C-alpha cells in the first residue's frame, strides 16, 4: 500500500474525502484485490475502535462500583495512602546498574524548583534536606535513609523517592539515580523525563514507571502505564521499548533481560507500603522472548473481591457471584496477576517454586472441560468466583450480559498442597483440540499453610 493509498483510506475513514479522491479510491479498489484486503483491514480498525469507544462509554455510564482510577494524578497524601498503587508500584520498580553506558554530557548537577507534596516516615541523611509538606524547595541532591517523599517537579512531573535512596537532578528533565527506588508519573507535559543510572537511561514517553537500583548495582525497570525507552549497554541494539505490564532487569554490564515478576501494591491496603516484603515463592514461564517482556504482578495477601485479575485489563476484577459470596478459603492469599494474552498459547508452562509449605490455587475458566494437567494435580474445591466486567469481546462470546449489560466469566477454584521448596508446573489455558472454546486466562493464588499443630497443650499445663 502506497502513502497515497493510505491517505485515501484516511480521508475516507474521516469522512473528509473529496469527490475526486473518492472516485480515485473507488477505481483503485475495483481493480486491485490486494488493496481491497488492505482497505478491509484498515476499516476493521475503525469498527473495532468504534466498538471499544462505545463500550468504554457504557462502562463509565453503568459502572456501579467505585474503582481506583489508574490514571489519577491526585497528588494528595490521602490519595497516595488510599491508593498506594501510584506510590508503591515503585515497589515493583526498578533499578539500575553500574556499567559501560555512556551517560552523555556530564553536566554539573543543578538545583531545580520542587514542591513537597507528601512525606511519610522520612528519615533523611545527616545534613541533608528537610521535607516539609507544601514547602517549595531548591533541590539538586536527595539522600533518604527511609520513608517516602513525593515531589512535584517542573512540567507537572510527579516524582516519588523511597528510602534508602540517593541521587541528584542534572536539570529539570534528568535525574541521576545512584541507589534506591523512584517512581515517576510524567503527566501530559513531562514527556521525555529521563532517569539516568550508571549504565542505563530510561526515557519516559508519557507514562508511569518505576526504577530501582539495588546494592549490587543491578537495575530493574517496570512500566505501569504508557511506554518508556530503556537504553543500556551503549549500542543501538540495546534499546528496549517497554509498554504497560513490561519490565526489564539491567545487569552491571548493561545487558538487559526480562523482569519475571514484581511486587504490586495492594489497593485495599491503607497502611504504609511494605516495599521490602519478600515474596514467598518464585514464578517463571517458558515464554521469554524479544517480544515478551511482561512481568507477573504479585500482591502479597491481596486476593479478595475487587482485586485486579491481570497485569493489564484494569477493569477486570475478581468478585463473588450473586449466588455465592467470595470464598473465604482464598481470601488473603498472595495473588499472582497473569497475562490474559497467554490464554491462547498452547506451549504455556508456568513453574512455581514455594519457599514454605503452601496451598496453591488455580482459578480456572469453568465453561469447558478442565485440562488433564489441572485434573491430575489439583482438587476441585467446588467453589467458584467471577471476573469482570469484560468488554463484549470474543472471550465472552457465549455469555449473556447481566441486567446492566456487563459480561462476567465464571471460574472454578482448584487447589493443591505444596511442600516447602517444591516446584509445580502449570500448563496451558487453551484446549488445543477445541481452539474455538475461548477461555479467559486462569488466575493463580498461593497461601502459606498454617503451622502444624504441636503438643503445646502439655507445655501450657502448670
Amino acid at each position, binding site marked *: 500500500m502506497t502513502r497515497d493509498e493510505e491517505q485515501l483510506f484516511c480521508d475516507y475513514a474521516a469522512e473528509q474525502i473529496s469527490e475526486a479522491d473518492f472516485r480515485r479510491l473507488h477505481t483503485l479498489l475495483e481493480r486491485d484485490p490486494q488493496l481491497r484486503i488492505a482497505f478491509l483491514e484498515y476499516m*476493521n480498525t475503525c469498527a473495532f475502535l468504534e466498538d471499544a469507544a462505545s463500550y468504554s462509554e457504557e462502562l463509565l455510564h453503568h459502572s456501579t462500583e467505585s474503582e481506583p482510577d489508574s490514571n489519577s494524578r491526585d497528588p494528595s497524601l490521602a490519595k497516595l495512602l488510599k491508593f498506594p498503587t501510584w506510590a508503591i508500584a515503585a515497589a515493583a520498580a526498578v533499578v539500575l546498574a553500574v556499567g559501560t553506558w555512556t551517560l552523555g554530557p556530564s553536566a554539573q548537577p543543578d538545583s531545580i524548583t520542587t514542591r513537597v507534596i507528601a512525606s511519610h516516615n522520612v528519615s533523611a541523611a545527616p545534613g541533608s534536606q528537610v521535607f516539609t509538606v507544601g514547602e517549595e524547595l531548591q533541590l539538586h541532591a536527595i539522600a533518604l535513609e527511609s520513608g517516602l517523599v513525593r515531589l512535584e517537579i517542573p512540567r507537572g512531573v510527579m516524582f516519588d523517592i523511597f528510602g534508602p535512596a540517593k541521587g541528584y537532578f542534572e536539570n529539570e528533565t534528568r535525574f541521576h539515580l545512584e541507589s534506591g527506588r523512584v517512581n515517576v508519573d510524567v503527566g501530559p507535559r513531562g514527556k521525555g523525563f529521563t532517569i539516568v543510572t550508571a549504565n542505563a537511561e530510561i526515557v519516559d514517553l508519557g507514562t508511569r514507571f518505576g526504577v530501582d537500583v539495588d546494592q549490587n548495582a543491578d537495575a530493574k525497570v517496570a512500566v505501569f502505564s504508557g511506554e518508556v525507552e530503556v537504553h543500556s549497554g551503549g549500542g543501538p541494539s540495546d534499546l528496549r521499548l517497554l509498554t*504497560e505490564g513490561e519490565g526489564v532487569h539491567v545487569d552491571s554490564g548493561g545487558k538487559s533481560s526480562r523482569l519475571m515478576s514484581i511486587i504490586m501494591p495492594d489497593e485495599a491496603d491503607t497502611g504504609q507500603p511494605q516495599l521490602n516484603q519478600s515474596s514467598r515463592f518464585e514464578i517463571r514461564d517458558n515464554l521469554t522472548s524479544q517480544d515478551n517482556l511482561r512481568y507477573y504482578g504479585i500482591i502479597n495477601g491481596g486476593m479478595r473481591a475487587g482485586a485486579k485479575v491481570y497485569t493489564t485489563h484494569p477493569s477486570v476484577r475478581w468478585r463473588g457471584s450473586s449466588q455465592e459470596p467470595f470464598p473465604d478459603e482464598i481470601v488473603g492469599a498472595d495473588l499472582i496477576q497473569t497475562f490474559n494474552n497467554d490464554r491462547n498459547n498452547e506451549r504455556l508452562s508456568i513453574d512455581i517454586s514455594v519457599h514454605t509449605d503452601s496451598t496453591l490455587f488455580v482459578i480456572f475458566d469453568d465453561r469447558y472441560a478442565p485440562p488433564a494437567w489441572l485434573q491430575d494435580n489439583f482438587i476441585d474445591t467446588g467453589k467458584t468466583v467471577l471476573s469482570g466486567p469484560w468488554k463484549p469481546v470474543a472471550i465472552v462470546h457465549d455469555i449473556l450480559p447481566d441486567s446492566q449489560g456487563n459480561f462476567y466469566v465464571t471460574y472454578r477454584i482448584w487447589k493443591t498442597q505444596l511442600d516447602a521448596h517444591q516446584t509445580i508446573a502449570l500448563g496451558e489455558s487453551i484446549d488445543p483440540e477445541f481452539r474455538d472454546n475461548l477461555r479467559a486466562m486462569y488466575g493463580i493464588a498461593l497461601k502459606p499453610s498454617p503451622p502444624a499443630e504441636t503438643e503445646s497443650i502439655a507445655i501450657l499445663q502448670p
Partner: protein
Amino acid sequence: MPSSESINSKSHEDFLRLFTASESTLRAYIRRLVPSQNDASEISQNTTIVLWQKFGVFVKKHPNYNSADQTKEDIQLHFKRWAMVVARYEVLSWRRDKFRDRHVFSEDLIKKLATDSQENGSTLENQLLALESCLEKIPAERRSLVLEAYSARNKPQEIAKRQGGTLNGFYQWLHRIRLTLLKCVKQTLEAQARS
C-alpha cells in the same frame, strides 16, 4: 416481533445466545462496507430486526441446531454465515436508498468487498481479537483520546480544538494510530503463528 414461523421463549433465548456471539463480528462486517459509523449503526439495527424476524427460517433450516449432534461451534458458524448474508442484503438495500449520496460505493464494489470480507473472515476476526491487546499497548492518555474521538457523542472538531490543533491534524493523528494498530496486529498474529 418474530413472524409466525415459530418463535417461542426458548428460541428467544437461543437467538440471544447466538446473536451475542456473532454481534461484534457482524457489526465489523457491516462497518467495512459503509462510509460512516452512523450508517453502520442504522444497518446493524435493521439487520438485527430482520435476523430476529427470520430466526424461525434459520431454525427450520437447522432443525437439530439444539441437539447434541450439533456442536456449539458448528451452530454458531452457521448462524454467523446466515447473519452475514442478511447483513449483505441490508447493506445493498441501504445503498439503493443512498445511491445519490457522495462517497457510497457502487453495488458492484460493495459486493466485491462483501465477498472479500467473507472469504477473509477468519483473518479479519483474528485481527479484531489482536486489536484488543494492541489497543492496550497504546499509552493510556493517547488511548483515552482515541476512544473519545471514536465515541459517537463527541465532535472531532471540539476535541481537536481542545487539544490545540487543527481538525485535519487530528484526523492525521488518528490515521497514524490506526496504522500503528495495524502494524501491531500483524506482528501479534505473526508471533502467534510462529508459536
